[in-house]
């Protein structure tokens, strides 16, 4: 058996173990990856914590934005060190994934020393509709920072023994980034045929070839598209149905397979509409066709803290149970940073009490602000690990918590971390 086949077999075995545990065959313990899979399809031993180390890893490892967002080894090593130091269950190599395709198309970015690069909204790639005819699709895997992404994913697979969750930018958000939000909104009203042509191009000539290239290189079992601009109130739900959903479905049809789920996590905005279920329904539609194997559907429903705090965790939990879908809830970045620890712990209790149900819940640390004191994160992770066991205890307030003592990050990295320079 060659190395590639051996790798894939290993991944399938771990997925199967996680899945079997989730649905009730509990012979072995779970590692972090298996726990995540078990949570997606049923009840794991406890709620898993999934981390996107991102700019927190950059700061903790004292890397410049240029290094972190352009060099595969420092990026992956710093992210992995961070995830291991805080002992999360699983981590995802997140970079500025909204920018990769647009940069490859020629959109200029603004680079700063200490934060992620950002699209230069003052210089959109398509300032006029007429510029569209000059747009050339990127060379998948070669244009812009696409080589950085592929090499990073390869390094991740080598280190983790499983492929990463890979990311692509959804076409609507990409359209906003290269055309400018106001221009695109005007186009939607006055030149809808143009918007459809642009969406078709971005979907089939940019996103699909890029996902195919990533799939060829790292055989991901999961590809997620993100669509920040397709949130409410940025767009109406009618606009999502006309200008986003059909293209998401086309991309999924062109790139998913029985072993590869491709989905759009949607975005946010439940709190902005009169009936929050309307937004959740759209998210389900962006996810359900994601795998050709119906037994592996649906995947997860991601709801952000600003929304669940206003709509109510129990309401989104109720919706998820009705649809038999895993609920992924992020943890408020502001709360992680500002604390204090007791407020963080109180929120953990609330999330477990109202969100964990009888399984099918993942806690996501999507963004840990750069100024977050490490002790906030240690407390958060320890509390989920000690209190998040199924069945969730009724008396969470009375349960003790032991926060493990850790050396500071620098000392820990010296002894146990990977090098974050180019060596």
């Amino acid at each position: 058996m060659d190395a590639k086949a051996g790798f894939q077999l290993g991944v399938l075995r771990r997925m199967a173990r996680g899945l079997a545990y989730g649905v009730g065959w509990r012979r072995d313990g779970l590692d972090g990856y298996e726990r995540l899979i078990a949570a997606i399809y049923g009840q794991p031993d406890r709620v898993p914590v999934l981390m996107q180390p991102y700019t927190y890893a950059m700061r903790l490892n004292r890397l410049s934005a240029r290094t972190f967002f352009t060099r595969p080894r420092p990026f992956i090593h710093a992210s992995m060190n961070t995830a291991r130091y805080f002992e999360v269950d699983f981590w995802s190599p997140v970079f500025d994934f909204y920018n990769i395709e647009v940069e490859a198309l020629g959109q200029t970015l603004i680079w700063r020393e200490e934060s992620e690069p950002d699209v230069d909204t003052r210089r959109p790639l398509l300032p006029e509709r007429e510029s569209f005819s000059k747009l050339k699709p990127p060379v998948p895997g070669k244009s812009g920072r696409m080589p950085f992404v592929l090499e990073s994913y390869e390094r991740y697979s080598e280190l983790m023994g499983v492929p990463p969750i890979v990311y692509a930018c959804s076409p609507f958000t990409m359209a906003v980034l290269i055309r400018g939000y106001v221009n695109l909104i005007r186009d939607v009203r006055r030149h809808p045929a143009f918007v459809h042509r642009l969406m078709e191009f971005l979907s089939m000539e940019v996103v699909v070839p890029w996902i195919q290239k990533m799939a060829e290189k790292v055989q991901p079992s999961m590809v997620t598209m993100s669509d920040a601009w397709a949130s409410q109130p940025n767009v109406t739900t009618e606009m999502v149905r006309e200008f986003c959903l059909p293209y998401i479905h086309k991309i999924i049809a062109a790139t998913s397979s029985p072993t590869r789920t491709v989905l759009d996590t949607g975005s946010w905005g439940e709190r902005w509409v009169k009936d929050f279920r309307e937004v959740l329904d759209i998210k389900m539609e962006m996810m359900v066709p994601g795998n050709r194997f119906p037994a592996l559907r649906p995947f997860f429903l991601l709801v952000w803290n600003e929304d669940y705090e206003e709509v109510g965790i129990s309401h989104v939990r109720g919706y998820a149970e009705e649809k038999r879908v895993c609920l992924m809830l992020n943890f408020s970045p502001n709360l992680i940073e500002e604390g204090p620890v007791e407020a963080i712990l109180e929120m953990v209790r609330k999330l477990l009490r109202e969100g964990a149900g009888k399984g099918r819940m993942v806690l996501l640390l999507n963004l840990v602000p750069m100024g977050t004191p490490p002790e906030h994160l240690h407390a958060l992770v320890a509390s989920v690990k000690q209190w998040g066991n199924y069945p969730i205890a009724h008396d969470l307030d009375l349960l003790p918590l032991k926060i493990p003592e850790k050396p500071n990050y620098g000392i820990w990295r010296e002894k146990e971390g990977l090098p974050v320079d180019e060596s």
Partner: protein
Amino acid sequence: MAWEEELKRAICEGEEEQAERIVSAALDENINPWEILERGAIPGIIEAGRLWQEGEYFLPDVILATEAYNQVSVALEPLLSEGERRGRGSVVIGSVEGDAHEIGKNIVVAMLRGSGYQVTDLGIDVEKEAFVESVRESNPDVLGLGAYMTTTMRRMPEVIQSLIEAGLRERVKVIVGGAAVTEDYAKKIGADGYGKDAAQAVSLVERLLGGG
């Protein structure tokens, strides 16, 4: 329909070309520019704000209304007297350094202008020194700081600190807003107020200047 109602509707519905035509026709009929703003354009943008607050309007509707209002106000502003331009008070506003997001800020600008305030828009990615300089030079009643990202909102206290160091903090009310910012954060950094959205920002300015 009278021109006032037509202009109000054109602005509220974001029909900027139609709004410009109505303004042009009104000027041809020698209607006073201030009257055009006050009886047609301002009610239009205020109506858009009301519909937004009631959840009837989404951001695209407000953006298009804002665009139409801005178009009309740019055409009319040179025709106004100094007193009319100064309006109910003055506001300097901008997105803090490192933050290139401008949509929310632009809506706040339009809503404030629509409510009769003179607004100096410093744009996006504004360094703290530029805020301080603008406060020193134009002596506004209110300074508005916007930040969309948790990474950039950390610049807000730096601006406030710079105002203190320059001896200007007592001269100006500082308000903050943007997707990343919360009321608690505003209090923590010593801002005078926080606006969750554009309509709240206008109410806040009115309250701070003793008009609301």
